[in-house]
C-alpha cells in the first residue's frame, strides 16, 4: 500500500498538533511537570564511573549516594524521598554535557551533583545556564568563576594557600620551585602562590609545567638538585603525583630540607605510591581522613561499612557528601510547589552544616563555601598527621588574585576604581 505525499503531510501535521496539545511542556518552557512530582525529589548524580578520572570520581559517586541514603533513612525531605538518577559520563567532557542535558531536560532533576575536572564543569555549564537548573560542584578548583547556576563546595586558591604559603616560608625558607601539570588549574594556583610569595619576600627559582599524565621526572629532579629550592610547590595531578614522589625519593632527595607541598595529593595517591614515598611531604586541604572530629569518625565508618573497609575518604568526597546535606536543608525550607532550582539556590545561601571537616556555610555573595583549611604531613602509614589547622573558617574569594573583579549573586562584576 503506498502513501501519497498529501496523506503523509496531513498525517504528520495531525500527529504534531496532537503531541503539542497533549504534552504542553514541549513548547511551554518551565510548564510544571513539577520538580517534586509524586512525593519524590529527583536529583542527578553525574560522576564518571569509567575512563581516566573514574578512579576518583567513583568515590564522589559513592559519597553522594551514601548521603542520599542517609537522608531517605531519616524520612526524606519533608516526607518526600530523594531519588538519585545516576549517569556515567565516562571521563569525557562532551559526554558530560550530553548526560547533563538528559538529567536536566529529560529527567527534570531539581539539581545535579557532579564533576571533578574543570573541563567537565565548563562543558556542562551552558546546559545549566540555558535551562536555569542548579549544579553542585564539590571539587577544589582554580576559582575565577561565578556562575549563577552553580553551587561551589570545593576550596578555591585563597582558602588553600593563605595559611600554607606563610607556614612553608616560616618553616623551610623562601626559595620555591613551582611544578605543575600543564593546564589551567596549576597555572592559576601558581599565580596565587607567586602573589603570596612576593608579599612575603619569597623567591621563585623555577616554574615548570609537564604534560598531563607525564611520568618521567629525572630531568626535573636534576633541576631541583641544581637550583636547591627550600620548598617544591607541586600542582601535578593524577599519575604524575605518584611518579614524582617515587622518583624524588629514589634520587635521594630529603623531605626535611626540600619538602614537596601540594594541593592535590590525597589519601588515594598516597596509597598508590606507597607510604614511605609520601612520608615527610605536605598537603594543604580542608579535609583529611585522619581528622579527629565526631562527625568525621561517623562519616569514615559509615563510608567503609557501605562501600568496603579498604576504601578511603578524601578532600573531594567529603564535600560531595556534605553538599547533599546542604541541598536537603535548602529544600526543606521550601514549600512543595516552589521547589525549583533558582529557589533552591536562594534557600541554600547561608545554610550551615556540621560537616566532617567542621561547620561549613554557603556564602550568599558568591555561592562558594566557608571551609577550614588544614595542613597535613604524610606519614608512612598512608594517613596525614594534621600539624596546622585554621582557627576559624576561611571566606571563599574566587577572584582573590584579580582585584578588579568580584563575584556577586548575579555573576561576576568588574569593580570600577
Amino acid at each position: 500500500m503506498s502513501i501519497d505525499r498529501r496523506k503523509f503531510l496531513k498525517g504528520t501535521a495531525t500527529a504534531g498538533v496532537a503531541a503539542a496539545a497533549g504534552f504542553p511542556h514541549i513548547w511551554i518552557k518551565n510548564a510544571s511537570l513539577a520538580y517534586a512530582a509524586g512525593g519524590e525529589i529527583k536529583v542527578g548524580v553525574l560522576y564518571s564511573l569509567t575512563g581516566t578520572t573514574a578512579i576518583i570520581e567513583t568515590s564522589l559517586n559513592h559519597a553522594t549516594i551514601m548521603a542520599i541514603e542517609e537522608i531517605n533513612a531519616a524520612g526524606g525531605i519533608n516526607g518526600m524521598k530523594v531519588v538519585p538518577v545516576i549517569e556515567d559520563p565516562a571521563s569525557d567532557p562532551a559526554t558530560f554535557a550530553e548526560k547533563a542535558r538528559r538529567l536536566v531536560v529529560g529527567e527534570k532533576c531539581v539539581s545535579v551533583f557532579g564533576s571533578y575536572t574543570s573541563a567537565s564543569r565548563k562543558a556542562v555549564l551552558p546546559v545549566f545556564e540555558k535551562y536555569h537548573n542548579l549544579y553542585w560542584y564539590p571539587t577544589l578548583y582554580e576559582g575565577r568563576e561565578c556562575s549563577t547556576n552553580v553551587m561551589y563546595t570545593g576550596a578555591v586558591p585563597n582558602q588553600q594557600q593563605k595559611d600554607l604559603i606563610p607556614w612553608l616560608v616560616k618553616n623551610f625558607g623562601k626559595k620555591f620551585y613551582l611544578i605543575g601539570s600543564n593546564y589551567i588549574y596549576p597555572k592559576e594556583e601558581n599565580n596565587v602562590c607567586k602573589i603570596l610569595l612576593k608579599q612575603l619576600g619569597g623567591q621563585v627559582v623555577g616554574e615548570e609545567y609537564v604534560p598531563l599524565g607525564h611520568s618521567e621526572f629525572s630531568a626535573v629532579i636534576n633541576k631541583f638538585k641544581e637550583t636547591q629550592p627550600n620548598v617544591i610547590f607541586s600542582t601535578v595531578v593524577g599519575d604524575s603525583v605518584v611518579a614524582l614522589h617515587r622518583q624524588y625519593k629514589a634520587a635521594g632527595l630529603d623531605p626535611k630540607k626540600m619538602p614537596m607541598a601540594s594541593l592535590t595529593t590525597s589519601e588515594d595517591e598516597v596509597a598508590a605510591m606507597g607510604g614511605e614515598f609520601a612520608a615527610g611531604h605536605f598537603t594543604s586541604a580542608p579535609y583529611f581522613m585522619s581528622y579527629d572530629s565526631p562527625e568525621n569518625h561517623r562519616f569514615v565508618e559509615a563510608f567503609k561499612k557501605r562501600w568496603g573497609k579498604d576504601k578511603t575518604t578524601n578532600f573531594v568526597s567529603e564535600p560531595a557528601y556534605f553538599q547533599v546535606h546542604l541541598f536537603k536543608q535548602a529544600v526543606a525550607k521550601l514549600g512543595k510547589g516552589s521547589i525549583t532550582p533558582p529557589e533552591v539556590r536562594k534557600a541554600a545561601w547561608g545554610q550551615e552544616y556540621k560537616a566532617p571537616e567542621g561547620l561549613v556555610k554557603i556564602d550568599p555573595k558568591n555561592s562558594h563555601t566557608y571551609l577550614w583549611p588544614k595542613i597535613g604531613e604524610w606519614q608512612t602509614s598512608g594517613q596525614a598527621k594534621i600539624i596546622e589547622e585554621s582557627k576559624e573558617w576561611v571566606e571563599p574569594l574566587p577572584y582573590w588574585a584579580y582585584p578588579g573583579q568580584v563575584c556577586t549573586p548575579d555573576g561576576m562584576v568588574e569593580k570600577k576604581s
Partner: protein
Amino acid sequence: MSSIIPQISVGLSIASILLLIALGLAIIYGTMGVINLAHGDFVMLGAYTVWFLQKQFAMNLITTLPFVFLFVGAVGWLAERSLIRHLYQRPLDTILATWGLGVIMQQAIRLSAGAELRYVKMPGFLINPVHFLGYEDSAYRIFIFALAVALLVATYLLIYKTEFGLRMRAITQNRDISRCFGINAGRVYALTFAYGAGLAGIAGALVSPLKSVAPDMGTSYVVDAFLVVVLGGVHSLLGTVASSYVIGQADAVLASWSDDTIAKAVVFLGVVVLIRLFPQGLFAVRVRRS
C-alpha cells in the same frame, strides 16, 4: 646547562626505559611485520602481574620477573595463535585487530583489578641512591639500565647465535622459501610474538615501581615504542639501541634546557625530520618481503 654527568645519566636512564619497551616491539615488527598496537597493554599486563604477585604472595620484584615473562609471553602466544595468525597479509586489519585486543585487555584489567592507581613495591636494597663520580643517582635506575643491557645481549644471542634465531632470520628474509626448507613458520611466528610480549611484560614490571600502575598506562608506551622502532630502522637491533639513545638523550637535554612539555614536542618534531631524511630509519637493512 648543568654539568655533563647528570645530563648523561638522565639520558641513559630514559634511553634504557625506552629500549626495554621497544625491544619487544622491534622483534615483533621486525620479524613479522605485525603492527602490534597492543604492545603497550602487554607492558601494562606485566606491571599488573607484579602487583598481583606482590599482593598475593608478597614476592620481591626480582623474583617475580620470570613469572611475568612466562605469563605475558603465554598471553602473547595465545593472541598470536587465535587472532594475529589470520591477518598476516592484511596490515590494516592487523592494526585494527591489535588495537581492539589492547582495548579488551585494558577493560579486562579495569573490571578485575579496578581502575585505581596501584602500588608496586621497589626492592628494598635499591631504594636508596648511589654515589658515583661526585653525583648521586637512583640505584633503581641503574638497575633498570643494567637489566636493559642484559636483555639486549640475551636477545642478540637468541637471534644470532641460536638455531631458533636462525630460523627466525630465515623467515624474515623470505618466508615461503624457508617453509620449503622445512621451517615451521607458524610455530616460529607464535614463539616470536610470545617472546616480544614477554619482553614487554618485563619492561612493565621494571618500570612500575618508578612510575604508577593504571589500566591506561600502556597508551603512551606504545607511542614511544613505535617512535624508537621506526626511527631506528625496522630490522635492525642496533638501530633500536641507537634510536632509543638518541631520543632519550635528546629528551633529557631539552628538558633540562627548557621543560618537559617543550622537550616532548621538539623530540617528536626531530623524529619527523629524521624520518624524512632517512625513510628506512637510521640503520636500514634490506629484506625481501613476500
